[in-house]
C-alpha cells in the first residue's frame, strides 16, 4: 500500500502538470510540460550530448569529492585524537567554515585559472569542511574505554588510528561524506556556471542563454538522478565497511 502511494503521488503530480500545460493554466514557455521535456530528452541522449556532459560532471564531482574527503578524514582523525592538533587547527576551521564556498570561487578562478583544477578544488573545499568536522566529532564521540583498551594492549600511534579512531568514527565519517556529496552537487552547478565548456551545470546555463527550458529541465533531472546514484554508491560502501552497524 505504501509503495503504491509512493509511486502514485509523483505520477499524479506529473499528470496534473501535463493537464495544466495542456489546458493553458501555466505558461509552457517558462514551465514546459512533462511530454515536452521527454521530447527534448531523446535527441540530447541520442546525440551523446547529455552523456558527455554528465560524464564531465561526474568526473569533476568524483575527483573533487576524493580530493576533499581524504584530507578531511585524515585531518579530522588527527584532530579527534590529539588535543594539540585540535587546538591548532580548530580555530581556523571554525573561522573559515561559515564563508560560503561560492564566495571564494572568484579567488579560486584567479589562483587556479579556468581549467579543471579550479572546479575540482571548489568541490573539494566544500566536501573537506563537512568531512573534517564530522570525522573529528566521530572520533571525539568514541567511548574513552576503547582508547583505554587499545592503550592497555600496547597500541602504537598507528594502531590508535587504524583500530580505534577510524572504525569508531566511520559512522560519522559516512554522515559527513553524504552531506559532502550533497554539497558537491550544489558546487558543481556553480563551478560550471563560469568558465566551463561542458558539464550538467554548464548545460543549465547554456539552456538559459538559449531560452531552451526543456533542455534546462533535462539537465535538472539529470542532476537529481546523479544525486540518487551517488547516494546509492555511498550507501553500498557504507554497508560494505560497517557490517557491525546493521540489524542493530
Amino acid at each position: 500500500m505504501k509503495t503504491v502511494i509512493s509511486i502514485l503521488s509523483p505520477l499524479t503530480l506529473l499528470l496534473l502538470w501535463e493537464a495544466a500545460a495542456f489546458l493553458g493554466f501555466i505558461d509552457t514557455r517558462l514551465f514546459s510540460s512533462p511530454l515536452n521535456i521527454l521530447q527534448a530528452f531523446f535527441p540530447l541522449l541520442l546525440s551523446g550530448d547529455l552523456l558527455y556532459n554528465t560524464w564531465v560532471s561526474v568526473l569533476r564531482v568524483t575527483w573533487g569529492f576524493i580530493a576533499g574527503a581524504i584530507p578531511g578524514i585524515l585531518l579530522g582523525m588527527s584532530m579527534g585524537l590529539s588535543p594539540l592538533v585540535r587546538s591548532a587547527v580548530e580555530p581556523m576551521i571554525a573561522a573559515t567554515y561559515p564563508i560560503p564556498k561560492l564566495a571564494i570561487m572568484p579567488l579560486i578562478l584567479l589562483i587556479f585559472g579556468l581549467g579543471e583544477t579550479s572546479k575540482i578544488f571548489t568541490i573539494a573545499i566544500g566536501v573537506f569542511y563537512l568531512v573534517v568536522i564530522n570525522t573529528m566529532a566521530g572520533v571525539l564521540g568514541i567511548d574513552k574505554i576503547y582508547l583505554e583498551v587499545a592503550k592497555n594492549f600496547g597500541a602504537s600511534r598507528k594502531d590508535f588510528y587504524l583500530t580505534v579512531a577510524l572504525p569508531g568514527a566511520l559512522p560519522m565519517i559516512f554522515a559527513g561524506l553524504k552531506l559532502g556529496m550533497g554539497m558537491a552537487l550544489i558546487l558543481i552547478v556553480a563551478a560550471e556556471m563560469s568558465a566551463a565548456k561542458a558539464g550538467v551545470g554548464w548545460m543549465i546555463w547554456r539552456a538559459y542563454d538559449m531560452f531552451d527550458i526543456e533542455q534546462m529541465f533535462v539537465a535538472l533531472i539529470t542532476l537529481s538522478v546523479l544525486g540518487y546514484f551517488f547516494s546509492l554508491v555511498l550507501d553500498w560502501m557504507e554497508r560494505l565497511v560497517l557490517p557491525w552497524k546493521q540489524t542493530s
Partner: protein
Amino acid sequence: MPYDSAGIVLNNIGKTFLSSSGQVTALTDINISIGDGEFFSIVGPSGCGKTTLLRILAGLDTATTGTIDVNIISGDRPINSMVFQEQSIFPWLNVLDNVAYGLKLRGIAQKERYAIAAKYIRMIGLSRFASAYPHQLSGGMKQRVSVARAFANDPEILLMDEPFGALDEQTRIILQQELLRIWELSKKTTVFITHSIDESLCLSDRVLVMTAHPGTVKAIVDVDLPRPRDIASIRTTHRYNELFQRIWLTLREEVLKVKSLELEK
C-alpha cells in the same frame, strides 16, 4: 605467603590527585607482594581507590610515589591485560577479531592469532558466535569475550576490574565458575577487584581489604579453601562463613567511616 616467588611487588605506592579543592590523596603507603600464579582480590568501600590502584597496575594511570615490579617470566609476553568493568569489546569487530585483538597488535600472523583466539572462544563456550558482532550478544556473553581477550593475549598478569559487577546473579555465578576453570588451567597471576565479599572468597587465594579514603592496606586475609573449587558447594562450608564474617567485620568499620563522612558533608 603461599607462593615460592613474587609475581608482582608494589613498593610504597601512593597517588595524589590535584582537584579544585586542593590536593587529594587517593592512595598511600601500599606495600603488597602478590605471589606468582596467585589469584589476589581487592575489596574496599566505594571510593577507596581500588580501581585507581588497578589502573596504575595496568599502566593507564601513573603512581605519584612508589614502584611496581612485575616478575617477567617470558620476555615476549605482554606484562598485563585488563578486563574492564564496563562493556569494552570493540563494537566494530566480531567476536573472533575482538579476542585476537591483543595478538594482532603484537604482530602475530592472522592464521596463528585466529587459532589461539578460537581456542579461548571455545573455552568460554562461544564458538557458535565467533563471527557475531557485539550488538548481537547479551551482556554476559560480552564479558565472556572480554575475559577471553585478556587470556588470549597471554600476559604475565591479568587485571580484572569488577568484570561481573554489571551482570545478573545467575550469569555472574556461571561466569565466576568459568573464570575459575580457565584460571586453573593457565595459573596466571590475577588481580581482581570486586565489591562482593562472596566473589572474592569464591575466587581468590588472598583478599586485600582496603581502608576508606585515602586507600591503603587494612588487612590481607588468606582464603584457605581447597582448590579446585565448586562455587555452589564452597559457600556451604563452615570455613567460608568464618572468612566471610572476618572480612565483613574488617570492611564494616571502613564502610561506616565513609558513611559518617558522607553525613558530615
